[in-house]
């Protein structure tokens, strides 16, 4: 009998290790598998057990529940925490999991299970198809960068492939610093071979033989899982001088960040990978032409690269058949903050924010009304409930004065003070700015001060006009998104929650 208890760090943060230990002690003949998380995070630790009818889920399980669970399993399996067959839980069944298909299902470090569950099919297909065709397939799939910018991935692949250089790199950006996002982390902890497979396909297609994964230091479990997966992949010949027995060479290394949000910006990440301060570089040249150590470099987010094996295996049309408008495929949304049912929702672009926050999320965890939803991380807009009918794709969000970012959705109830949130956006920028551009480095400090004056009621109209002006300077005068987009949450708060800025405070 197999029992699954997630090893995902979110599950561990609420006691999964203790539950796994207690189950191992109580059921010496069972095999306790430490899988990734299914992404139903409010139910963690979510324990699954093998039955004649498939895997059945129980959760959230505490150590105190273990004796009654063990008793239930020796009988018909009835238990107050029983959620039914895992795959039939509506929250999961309604999703379209292409990238997260195996996350939570398999043991992330079991290479045989990875292959048995369809792993490596994309890489085999890529080797059969050839590099040039693979690049064109990524173009045709409509895949866009999932890190936030939404740049067409295929165009980047073409650019790197066209460069004539002795050495090219594939850099995966796993510096997932946006609050409200955790999909990169869960993918690396739950299906690390998928990322390595995607990187290998990318490397072979653009002519790079070295890959680097830059993981933020706040993700020690992801670093550990990726490092172990790397060693296993090498020992199996999935990486190395003859990838899967072919003549192609590709290898990967893992690098760990050091606590700098702006290193998620691609050129700051390159500086950090070269061992320096994470200061943003001016573009051009774009990294696809001159990136890591001056060589052509394909930089992509974890989720972008992780979508590639599906495209390679099933073809670009299959991937592009999901989505809306110019946003093709699926997006891994992350429901976070004050939300009753938080976790991973992978579904085609075009679902509304309301569907995500209310239907999937179940409203707030506190049970109070939703007042604001921040979409796209600390640089994303705060949207009021009236705006929640917006379709979740790149263009629709942009039209609504917001952005998709990395797909994080943070819910706030009616106790939120939007002046505090606007102030925090500026404070965060002042702390995390790399310091290169004056509007970002100094403007953010001034922004905090101006918002404080507005909150105190000093020359409210004049200071509000000053804040709007400052935001314009930051937006137009900063090299990267740090200074350029910090105004988005500030101005959205000012626009849609102006009552917070004008009320008297005690």
């Amino acid at each position: 009998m197999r029992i699954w208890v997630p090893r995902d760090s979110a599950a561990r943060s609420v006691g999964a290790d203790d539950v796994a230990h207690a189950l191992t002690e109580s059921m010496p003949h069972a095999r306790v598998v430490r899988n990734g998380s299914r992404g139903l995070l409010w139910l963690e630790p979510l324990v699954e057990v093998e039955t004649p009818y498939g895997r059945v889920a129980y959760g959230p399980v505490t150590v105190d529940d273990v004796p009654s669970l063990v008793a239930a399993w020796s009988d018909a399996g009835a238990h107050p925490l029983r959620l039914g067959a895992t795959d039939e839980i509506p929250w999961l069944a309604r999703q379209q999991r292409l990238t997260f298909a195996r996350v939570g299902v398999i043991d992330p470090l079991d290479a045989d299970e990875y292959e048995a569950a369809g792993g490596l099919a994309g890489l085999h297909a890529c080797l059969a198809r050839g590099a040039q065709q693979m690049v064109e397939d990524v173009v045709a799939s409509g895949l866009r960068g999932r890190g936030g910018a939404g740049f067409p991935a295929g165009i980047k692949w073409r650019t790197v492939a066209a460069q004539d250089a002795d050495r090219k790199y594939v850099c995966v950006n796993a510096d997932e610093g946006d609050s409200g996002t955790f999909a990169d982390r869960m993918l690396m902890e739950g299906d690390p071979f998928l990322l390595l497979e995607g990187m290998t396909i990318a490397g072979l297609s653009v002519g790079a033989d070295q890959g680097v994964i830059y993981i933020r230091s706040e993700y020690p479990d992801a670093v550990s899982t990726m490092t172990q997966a790397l060693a296993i992949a090498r020992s199996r010949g999935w990486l190395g001088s003859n990838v899967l027995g072919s003549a192609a060479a590709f290898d990967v290394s893992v690098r760990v960040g050091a606590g700098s949000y702006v290193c998620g910006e691609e050129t700051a990440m390159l500086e950090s990978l070269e061992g320096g301060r994470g200061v943003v570089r001016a573009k051009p040249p774009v990294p696809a032409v001159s990136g890591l150590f001056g060589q052509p470099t394909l930089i992509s987010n974890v989720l972008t690269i992780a979508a590639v094996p599906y495209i390679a295996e099933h073809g670009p049309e299959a991937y592009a058949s999901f989505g809306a408008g110019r946003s093709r495929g699926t997006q891994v949304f992350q429901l976070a903050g004050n939300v009753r049912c938080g976790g991973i929702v992978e579904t085609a672009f075009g679902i509304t924010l309301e569907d995500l926050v209310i239907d999937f999320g179940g409203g707030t965890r506190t049970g109070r009304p939703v007042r604001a939803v921040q979409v796209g991380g600390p640089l994303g807009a705060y949207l009021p409930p009236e705006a929640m009918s917006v379709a979740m794709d790149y263009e629709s969000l942009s039209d609504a004065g917001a952005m998709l970012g990395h797909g994080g959705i943070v819910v706030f109830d009616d106790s939120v003070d939007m002046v505090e949130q606007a102030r925090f956006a500026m404070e965060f920028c002042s702390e995390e700015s790399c310091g290169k551009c004056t509007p970002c480095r100094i403007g953010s400090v001034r922004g905090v001060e101006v918002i404080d004056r507005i909150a105190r009621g000093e020359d409210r109209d004049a200071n509000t006009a000053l804040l709007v002006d400052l935001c314009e300077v930051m937006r137009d005068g900063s090299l990267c998104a740090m200074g350029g987009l910090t105004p988005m949450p500030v101005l959205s708060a000012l626009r849609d929650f102006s009552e917070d800025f004008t009320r008297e405070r005690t």
Partner: protein
Amino acid sequence: MTPRFAPWSDETAREVLADINEPGPVLIALQALQAEFGYVHADAVSIVALRFNVSRADVYGVLTYYRDLLTSTPPDTQVRICMGEACQSVGARALMADARAWASDDIGVDHVYCLGNCALGPAATVNDRLYGRVTPGSLAAVVDRGHAS
């Protein structure tokens, strides 16, 4: 309680750096020193500069840029409370205010922007172990347990 880190020594530092051969090694070198000693001693700037043939200014610049890199010994117990928006929405500010009240020389309390546990906030780490759905009471209890052992 056994110390978490080795005491600083220039000789050990040079040994730690001996095996580092990556291109662009300065950040890796400083991270390796911190993993060994818990912080980066002031002497490390010259040692790293000499080992990799870069200027001391370059090494110092990197050392002072990154939040993770410490220039003095960390407290026995280091608590980091996530102050990202997702954790703010479920009470991180109150949690931080409470923790500040019991912070001491031995128990450091600092903020961090996002631990990737945004659906189970407020999140915090105690000596790098991650906790979710933290309350002022549960965090204080974890710290008390760890500090007593």
